[in-house]
Structures are given as structure tokens and as C-alpha cells.
């Protein structure tokens, strides 16, 4: 749910352009912070996890318009620096498949990275406290997803003025004006409706809540499966808990 499924041309240019610039800057910064040989060694894993995320995103749970992101699982497996590059690649590919616009790649990357990075750190904290794998992952995923959804809502809120302009766009001249289809005596309709941001939030949050629970459960079970078979992948240096 935290993934912005907005198409191109809906968000204002300043918003998606600043998101893109910020995402590129953070990607550049993180690529400097990670050791070169570590990046080379983990590039194939990065590719595989990104592919798993793309596949997860393509499985739509239709009744609640939700799909699993696997961002928290990937964040826990790859760490906070690489998750940023993964989400950048995933969003680029998803946009090519029509899943979100190409222009919102930067914003999507920021939102999903926040989810992955928060998930990673929450998991470390909860694991240190409880030493129980399922509750730690469930809580980390639930909290990370809910916070990133609020971040997404905040991004949509920033574009409200622009949606108002779009709603009333047929009353005024746009960048391209084609008069052929317009009648000469056409009078603009009276539009009293405004952008209904509350309705958007009231739909997103309950659906999102179901999604957070579902993804929390799925991520916990996936990582429990991995913990049983390949515990070293979770890089938990402390002694193993009772799962």
C-alpha cells in the first residue's frame, strides 16, 4: 500500500522532480559509503532479491488492491545501504511494466527505502529485546509499512493544489489547446466539488491496515523459513532465540 501507484502526470512537476533528485543524491551517497568489493560480491544477490520483489509486486491480492512488497524482508537480508539501490531498480522495472509512473520512480524509491531501512532497524531492536523471530519480524514489518504509508499519504497531500488545477483544467487553457472539439458557445460548468483528500485517506488506511497485517504475517513466515534453513543469511550474531 505504501507504493505510490500514481501514474505519470498526476503529481506536480516540482514534487516528483525533487523526489527524483533526492533519490539520486542518496543513491550516490550510499554507493560511496559501501565498500566496492562488497558491492561487487553482492550485486548478483541484489539482482535476485530485486527480481523476487518485482515478482511479489506482480501478485495482486484483488479484494484489497494489495500486493506484497518484500521490502522489509529484502532490507533485513541485504542491509540498509543496498536496499536503496534495490528499490531504485525495482521501481524502475515496475514502472516499465506500468506499475506506477516513470516520473514517480524517485518518490517510490524514497518511500520503499524508508520501509526497508526502518524494517531492518526495527527488526534488530526487537530481536535484541525478545530473541523471538516471528514477533520481531511481524512488529518490524507492521511498523515499517504503517510509517511508510503515512509518508506516502504525506506525499499525495503535497500535491492537493495540483489536483485542484487538474479538476478544473477544462475550464481554462492548458499547455496544449485544441479548439476543434469545443463548441463556440461552450460555457464552463459550475464545479463546486473540491479535491476530497479525506476520502482518499479513509480508503487507503483501512485497506493498508489489512495489508500491513497480511504482509507482516507473510514476511514473518518467509524469514522464519529462511532462518530455519539458512540462519546465517539474517546475520544475527547474537545467540539464536527460540523462534
Amino acid at each position, binding site marked *: 500500500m505504501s507504493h505510490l*501507484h*500514481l*501514474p*505519470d*502526470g*498526476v503529481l506536480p*512537476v516540482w514534487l516528483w522532480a525533487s523526489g527524483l533528485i533526492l533519490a539520486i543524491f542518496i*543513491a550516490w551517497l550510499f554507493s560511496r559509503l559501501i565498500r566496492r568489493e562488497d558491492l*561487487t*560480491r553482492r*550485486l*548478483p544477490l*541484489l*539482482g*535476485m532479491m*530485486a527480481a*523476487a520483489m*518485482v*515478482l511479489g509486486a506482480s501478485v495482486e491480492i484483488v479484494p484489497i*488492491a494489495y500486493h506484497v512488497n*518484500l521490502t522489509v*524482508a529484502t532490507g533485513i*537480508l541485504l542491509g540498509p545501504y543496498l536496499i536503496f*539501490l534495490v528499490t*531504485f531498480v*525495482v521501481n*524502475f*522495472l515496475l514502472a516499465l*511494466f*506500468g*506499475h*506506477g*509512473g*516513470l*516520473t514517480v520512480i524517485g518518490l517510490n524509491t524514497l518511500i520503499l527505502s524508508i520501509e526497508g531501512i526502518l524494517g531492518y532497524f526495527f527488526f534488530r531492536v526487537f530481536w535484541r529485546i525478545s530473541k523471538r523471530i516471528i514477533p520481531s519480524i511481524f512488529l518490524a514489518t507492521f511498523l515499517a509499512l504503517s510509517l511508510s504509508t503515512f509518508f506516502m499519504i504525506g506525499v*499525495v497531500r503535497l500535491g492537493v493544489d495540483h489536483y485542484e*488545477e*487538474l*479538476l478544473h*483544467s477544462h475550464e481554462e*487553457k*492548458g*499547455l*496544449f*489547446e*485544441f479548439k476543434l*472539439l469545443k463548441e463556440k458557445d461552450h460555457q464552463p460548468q459550475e464545479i463546486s*466539488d*473540491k479535491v*476530497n*483528500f479525506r476520502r482518499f485517506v479513509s*480508503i487507503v488506511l483501512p485497506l493498508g491496515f489489512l495489508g500491513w497485517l497480511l504482509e507482516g*504475517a*507473510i514476511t514473518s*513466515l*518467509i*524469514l522464519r*523459513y*529462511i532462518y530455519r534453513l539458512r540462519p546465517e*543469511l539474517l546475520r544475527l550474531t547474537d545467540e539464536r532465540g527460540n523462534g
Partner: protein
Amino acid sequence: MVQLSYLDYLALEGRSFLHRLSPKWKLLGMGFVLLWIVLPRNLHAVILLYGILLFLFLLSRLPLRLFPLTFYPLLFATLFIFISNFQIQFILLVFLKVLSGATGVVILLGTTPYPFLFQTLERFLPSIFVTALFLTYRSLFILLKVLEETQHALYLRGGFQWSHPIRSLTNLSNAFGHLIIVAIDYSEKMYEAMKLRGFKNKVHYRGE
């Protein structure tokens, strides 16, 4: 997602004018389409763009069975219409922008083999990003094959049934867990093979 290999096949085997056009021009064209989608607030301008893209789709001689792919993003755009108080003008504008973007992308992917696409992208984007993109795209085909096998295993264990939600959730999660572990195994083998061939953070393309 399963249509991915078919799109690749069409991009390689197609013989239309658009297939022969340089990937550089096609990417520039896609950039122009995006600009056209982003800038106008006028419904007629977007209708004109969609009309041009439909014409290009026919010109590319891509099979009509690919056309429904362009409707896929509408599924996600529907949530956004609630913000508009269901105003038909706004909904049409948003939907046509979505359809235009998706049609442009299907034409691009259906007429350009992905190594050429990534090779061209490398001129504009950092090589590490394009390498990661290339590896992800390659991994998608590997994982799709694993997913197909996993689906059989999942089916034999009861698959996904709404009447047994907990068992279904466990099955689904185990399937994804298996997918990730196989992905990690493959990635380790891929890294060893790439290292033996002298990989240094960059994929080289034929002709470079």
C-alpha cells in the same frame, strides 16, 4: 509478468519500422511521450497522444494479444479517482495518461531487445545502476522458472484456499521463502561464474 519472455521474443524477431529504429531514438521518443503526459492539463491533448500511440502500436505490428497489457496500470489508478469526487473529466484525464504511458512502454519493450535498451541507458545512467538493472532483468527469467516449479509444489500442498487461510498463508510464505533461498543459491553461483569471467562491476555489451 509471464508475458515478459514473449515480449523479448517479439523484440528480437519483429521486422517492423519501429523494430529497425535505433534504441536511442526510441528512448528519446519515450521521453517525449512522458513529457506530453506530464505537461498538458487538457484532455484533448492527451486523447491526441493516445491516438498517436495506438497508431504506432499498429505500425509496430505487435500482436493484438499484447494490447490488454496496456490496461494493467488502470487497476492501480482506480484508487486515485476517489480523490476527485468522481468527476468524469478528471477520471478520463488520469486514465488516458495511464493508458498512454503504458502503451508507450509496451511499444518500447516489444520493439527493443533489452540488452540494447540497457546499453543505451548506460549512456545516461550510472553503470552500477544499469548493471544492477541488467542482473535483475536476467534474474527475473530464472525466478519465473523456479516460481513455475514452486507453484506445482504449492498446488500439491493444498495451494491457496480462502477456506483455510492460515494453512494457505503458511504455504504461500514457504513458497516465497523457497523462492528466496533458491534465488540466493543462484546468485552465489552467478557471482562465481562472473568473477571467473573477469567481472568488475560492469556488464560489457557486444560491439563495445
